[in-house]
């Protein structure tokens, strides 16, 4: 029996682990992480499926393949009774801009259900004097439900959890045949990865159930995204590792968001959250064989650095990582 370890229990780690179980029936998969569930970076995200080629650095063919694989899977779940357990549902909304230049490439439009440019009449109905807008039909994978749903699947298929912070790959040699590294921002330490950079996000979750669509104001990164019971309001994207909540950031965010959604003024805030998006130029999705000083080797697959699109890409990159694992397994012995 092949023993596989997945480092990291966020959306990417869990989706990768479940994929491994589904494709490799003879494998025993263990997820090793120091943070689970509501403590993960994934937990606070709005969960909107949004292909963002300007924010996620991947070669175009891989970008397309990973998004497409993700969206096909999520679309298929949405049509079943599992949809509400999985926290996966259809949503529409607006991407609005303050200048008239933005164009969304066709290959991006093809990655969601639809994207159409908004008419002037419709654009004018949104307060805030936006100059251009797109209406997007896409999906949400709400982490509050998506992560536990993946966890349930993982356990049901015989998966094991281990609460432990991996500080070096050497710990895992001889214990696991292959390691899939979905450690997110942890790669700074674990891999000495200098290409990682932290994109701090701060959000407020409010009760505003009359809001059924999202609005993303692209230029100032202000947004609100309805989830099932709450609406995520955000507008912070700073390169910073600071996990401390900031009142100033929240005030600035409200200032901007209330301009295009005045009805949020009276919404009750039920939660506040800060997360560090694990960004990397480019996203690391590749095989490696690590050699150690004592001569031993470890087969590794890296799947981290998804930045703003971790939830979106979780399933598609999980599939890619699984393919790399299969390649490792069929390759000649070390």
């Amino acid at each position, binding site marked *: 029996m092949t023993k596989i370890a997945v480092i990291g229990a966020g959306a990417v780690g869990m989706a990768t682990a479940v994929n491994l179980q589904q494709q490799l029936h003879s494998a025993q998969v263990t997820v090793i992480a120091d943070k689970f569930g509501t403590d993960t970076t994934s937990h606070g995200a709005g969960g909107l499926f949004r292909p963002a080629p300007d924010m996620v650095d991947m070669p175009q063919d891989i970008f397309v393949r990973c998004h497409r694989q993700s969206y096909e899977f999520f679309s298929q779940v949405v049509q*079943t009774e599992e949809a509400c357990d999985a926290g996966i549902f259809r949503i529409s909304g607006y991407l609005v801009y303050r200048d008239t230049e933005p164009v969304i490439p066709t290959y991006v439009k093809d990655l969601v259900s639809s994207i*159409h440019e*908004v008419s002037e009449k419709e654009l004018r109905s949104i307060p805030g004097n936006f100059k251009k807008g797109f209406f997007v039909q896409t999906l949400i994978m709400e982490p509050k439900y998506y992560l536990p749903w993946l966890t349930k699947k993982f356990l049901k298929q015989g998966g094991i959890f281990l609460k432990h912070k991996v500080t070096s790959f050497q710990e895992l040699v001889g214990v696991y045949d292959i390691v899939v590294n979905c450690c997110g921002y942890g790669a700074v330490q674990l891999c000495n990865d200098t290409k990682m950079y932290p994109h701090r996000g701060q959000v407020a979750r409010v009760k505003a159930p*009359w809001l*059924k*669509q999202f609005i993303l104001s692209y230029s100032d990164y202000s947004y609100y995204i309805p989830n099932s019971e709450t609406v995520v309001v955000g507008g912070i994207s700073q390169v910073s590792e600071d996990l401390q909540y900031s009142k100033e950031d929240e005030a600035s965010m409200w200032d901007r968001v209330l301009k295009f959604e*005045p009805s949020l003024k009276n919404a009750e805030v039920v939660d506040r959250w800060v997360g560090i998006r694990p960004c990397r130029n480019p996203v690391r999705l590749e095989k490696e064989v690590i050699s150690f000083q004592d001569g031993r080797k470890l087969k590794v697959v890296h799947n981290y650095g998804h930045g703003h699109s971790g939830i979106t890409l979780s399933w598609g990159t999980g599939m890619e990582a699984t393919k790399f694992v299969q390649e490792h397994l069929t390759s000649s012995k070390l």
Partner: protein
Amino acid sequence: MGSKKMQIAVIGAGVAGLASALNIQTALPQTQVTIFCDKKDTETTSYGAGGLFRANEAYYPDLDLTKFRKYVQSSFEFYDKVAHSEEAGKAGIFVISGYELYHGKRVEPPVGHDYVYSCRELSKEELQRIPGNYSGGYFVTTLVMESRKYLCWMMEKFVKNRGRLVERKIQSFDELSDYEVVVNCSGLGSYHLVPDPKVYPSRGSLIRLNAPWIKHYYISMSDYGYIIPNTDMVVIGGINQHDREDTHFLQEDADVIMSKLEQYDPSLKTAEVVNKWVGLRPCREGTFRLEKDIRYFPSGSIIKIVHNYGHSHIGISLSWGSGCEVARLVQELITSHTSKL
């Protein structure tokens, strides 16, 4: 006459009555408006409706299309303003998108869709991805005016503007001879009150579910099944039974509704049922009645009336625009009176 305000009576505290009363208060600040009703809030026909803005001219074979368009446009413009204001949540008026789908021969979108944010025909590829084998349909961005909240919000404004509410069933217009003008928004009650034999009920049943993951609406243009998200609950329905007046919710109602929707959205089956409701739509043969009238009674009273009833399936959608028109007609009646002096 001194500083005494001109008295206007409105019969009915459903959407038509409240929207009419509010419009009169705003357009004619020199008046004092009193609403007479035998049912208010949860007891009104309006209360349970899903509240989707969808002004479909098909319900009115004798419609004056030009006037209809005017009422529809002024309705939408008002709801749009509220939806993009701080009051959206309180008023229960919000933007929503959804799918309107049909089987068989092509169905045109309703006239009201000329006024909504967008109405786009679905492509073949999109239709293929939707369960149910629909031959065509539209993706529409419009508004919901969630009745229960909208009614409450209007009532609050009405009272704040010094409106009076009297809970009393009016059996004859003659009872209100002290009022300068009587506005009749009595819905089904007009059958007896006017009396108007063209008025008839159309029974509708609906279910409210706890299904917060549903963010779009759905209308089957072929068999009338629908899913309409409200603020906290999702309304599902699809019953339209002419000339039935029973208001008990029946198991067969639930079966019919689910049979129309479960293929389109299987997740509905997993949702918790919060309540079930039956309402009798106040329909009228030919078209709804929105016009001036003068009635003479044996007592010698001459009652000036503005009728605003019989809106069938689109009472919530038309409420504001018809209310605007009511205020205009009331103004005409008042002006014609004073010009006689």
